[in-house]
């Protein structure tokens, strides 16, 4: 077993990552050891990143233990970069986290300056040049080779012609150098997209009641809706994030099927969402920042109200669908959509009703014909015991389903539906022969024989659906 990471106290005792545990114990007998769990570390980092969303919408992870915050245009709340950094460090310190920060023109420069210590320098360019070559982030072998060649700092490497470095250490080394010199861009992979419309409220004194938080939320929604109104848009995806003083962040999302600018509707949905939470909203020591993002907005022109007042029918229906979807989950409120397949159980899909309906083409029933498809479909089909199938290709005279024997009085068929042989090549798919049958008491069933007599010895019979 080897040491994966050490804290400040251990580092001062001369322990370094990579040392075997036995060696470390021999040097420091009273060592506290914990099992390394990289996944839990990453999870923790994610949560810190969530908390840092209070400073800027663009937060990126630099695993295993770094965060990159793009604070361009975000410092006005703190009157400068340094008070902002002080606030970050104070919050981290409250949770027992030792943090080190650095500012840079690009993420790569800030990253290198935060991780590596060089000689003091008057400005950023020179500070970068004085960093050790390890700051380039090359593999150990390359770093050692550079050091052996007498190139101790980043500045030394930068002075060399790049062609030589590319020839010796590859294109990766050149990119690393260009990044630190600010010539190459470092893309920041933000954890979330910046919402086009957002409203937020900061509190000097944290608010500790959910009711007050909801009232603030309603105000924020009003502000956001004003913006939407100016843009002739309505919001479809809304997210509220409640930042607690202790750094935890709770987020609630609601989605509507139609773009909306209705505060009352929105608040109703948020209340539904809160009611349906597994563990209730816990303000802890209070929220000091509440932010409402509209992640998706769509065009919504002003609508004319009905003559006798009230909304139109479709709007009310859409509101109901949104309400039920928020409480029960999107996948529980569904609509039918046809699919271009001919196997009955695969011929249609059920899609969330909040999603925009697709262009639909249902087959029109033949005039004068009785219904040829059942209203209930068993998936998988239910096995029935068929007795006395008359002629080989005919329907059974009677069958047993769920412990009841049904005498077939009338039947129509077969409607032959072949398996989708172009989808599976390994085994032949039996053909199904469907029959519409009616028993003597008037119940109508959809049954099929799985396989032709030429395909299988004794084909099984199944009940697939029930007619009205």
């Amino acid at each position, binding site marked *: 077993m080897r040491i994966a990471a050490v804290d400040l106290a251990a580092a001062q005792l001369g322990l370094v990552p990579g040392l075997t545990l036995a060696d470390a114990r021999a040097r420091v007998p009273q060592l506290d050891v914990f099992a390394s769990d990289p996944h839990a570390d990453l999870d923790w980092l994610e949560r810190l990143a969530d908390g840092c969303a209070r400073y800027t919408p663009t937060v990126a992870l630099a695993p295993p233990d770094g965060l990159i915050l793009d604070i361009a245009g975000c410092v006005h709340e703190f009157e400068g970069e340094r008070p902002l950094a002080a606030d970050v460090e104070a919050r981290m310190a409250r949770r027992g986290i030792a943090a080190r920060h650095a500012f840079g023109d690009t993420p790569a420069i800030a990253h290198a300056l935060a991780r590596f210590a060089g000689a003091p320098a008057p400005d950023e360019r020179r500070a970068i040049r004085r960093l050790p070559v390890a700051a380039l982030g090359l593999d150990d072998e390359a770093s050692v080779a550079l050091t052996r060649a007498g190139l101790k700092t980043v500045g030394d490497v930068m002075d060399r012609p790049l062609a030589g470095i590319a020839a010796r250490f590859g294109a990766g080394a050149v990119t690393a150098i260009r990044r630190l010199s600010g010539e190459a861009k470092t893309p920041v992979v933000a954890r979330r997209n910046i919402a086009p419309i957002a409203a937020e409220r900061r509190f000097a004194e944290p608010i500790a009641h959910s009711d007050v938080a909801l009232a603030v939320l309603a105000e924020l929604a009003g502000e956001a809706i004003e913006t939407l109104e100016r843009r002739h848009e309505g919001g479809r995806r809304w997210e509220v994030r409640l930042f607690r003083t202790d750094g935890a962040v709770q987020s609630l999302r609601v989605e509507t099927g139609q773009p909306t600018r209705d505060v009352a509707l929105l608040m109703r949905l948020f209340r539904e969402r809160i009611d349906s939470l597994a563990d209730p909203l816990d303000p802890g020591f209070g929220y000091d920042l509440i932010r409402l993002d509209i992640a998706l907005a769509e065009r919504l022109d002003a609508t004319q109200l009905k003559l006798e007042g009230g909304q139109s029918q479709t709007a009310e229906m859409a509101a109901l669908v949104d309400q039920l979807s928020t409480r029960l989950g999107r996948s529980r409120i569904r609509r039918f959509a046809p699919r271009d397949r001919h196997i009955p159980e695969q011929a249609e899909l059920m899609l969330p009703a909040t999603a925009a309906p697709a262009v639909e083409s249902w087959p029109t029933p033949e005039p004068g014909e009785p219904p040829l498809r059942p209203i*209930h479909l068993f998936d998988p089909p239910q096995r029935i015991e068929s007795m006395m199938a008359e002629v080989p290709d005919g329907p059974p005279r009677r069958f047993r389903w769920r412990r009841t024997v049904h005498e077939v009085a*009338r039947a129509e068929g077969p409607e032959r539906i072949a398996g989708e042989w172009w989808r599976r090549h390994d085994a032949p798919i039996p053909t199904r022969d469907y029959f519409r049958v009616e028993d003597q008491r008037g119940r109508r069933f959809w049954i099929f024989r799985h396989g032709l007599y030429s395909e299988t010895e004794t084909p099984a019979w199944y009940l697939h659906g029930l007619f009205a």
Partner: protein
Amino acid sequence: MRESSALIESLRRAAPFGVSAGARDPVEAWLRQGLARAQLHELYALDAQDAAAATGFAVALAIAAGALPLLWIRTDDAERRHGRILGAGLVELGMAPTALVIASVADEAGLLRAAADAARCAGLGTLVVESHDRAPRIDLTATRRLMLAAEASGVTVLLLRLGAEPTPSAATTRWGVTAIPSTPLPTDAPGHPSFAVELLRRRGGPAGARWRVEWKRDDRYFAPIADSAPLSGARLPVAADRAAARHPRAPVRRAG
């Protein structure tokens, strides 16, 4: 134009099921009068084997009345045990799938909660609440709540009680639906959906009438099957499997 038609629509809401479209025969008139809009109606399939018939009858009713959109609430258990709903089958009954939303809920408590919310939504035409077996939570209180919501919003609530015995409820009417042999097509193939419908109970009016009707999808109405004027119970060949004694002869009003 649009507003005025909406106004007419709202006025019509108080009237019985689709008065404008004039009933074609006495049976239909009866069905329309009995199944008033903005009320709660119970459709019983006393025998669980008639569940599909009662379900189909409910859908056909909504289509006949033009009370769309339709929201259909059912439990996961119903989905598992009684099969899923097939959109193509509803199209064959004359329904436009775009006017239909299906909600599946975890249990009976969720069913009633969702139903209570949906019954309050005036944008809805028909609300179908599907329940199986005894369903003890659907009691006088729950049905009263649904009834009040329906009266306020104008939604017609059809409560499907499949495989259940009648229990006390606040519904305006209670119907028993059974499947009957259809009029065969020329090749002796099963014909159009046919039902025997019995008015088991009606608030403030006589009950006990029975009809045999056939659903005509193309014309969107229930056609009476020959020899099925509203007769008194005993002579009717309908529902031969059920003891006529269980539902005494018309006209009677029974509590519960």
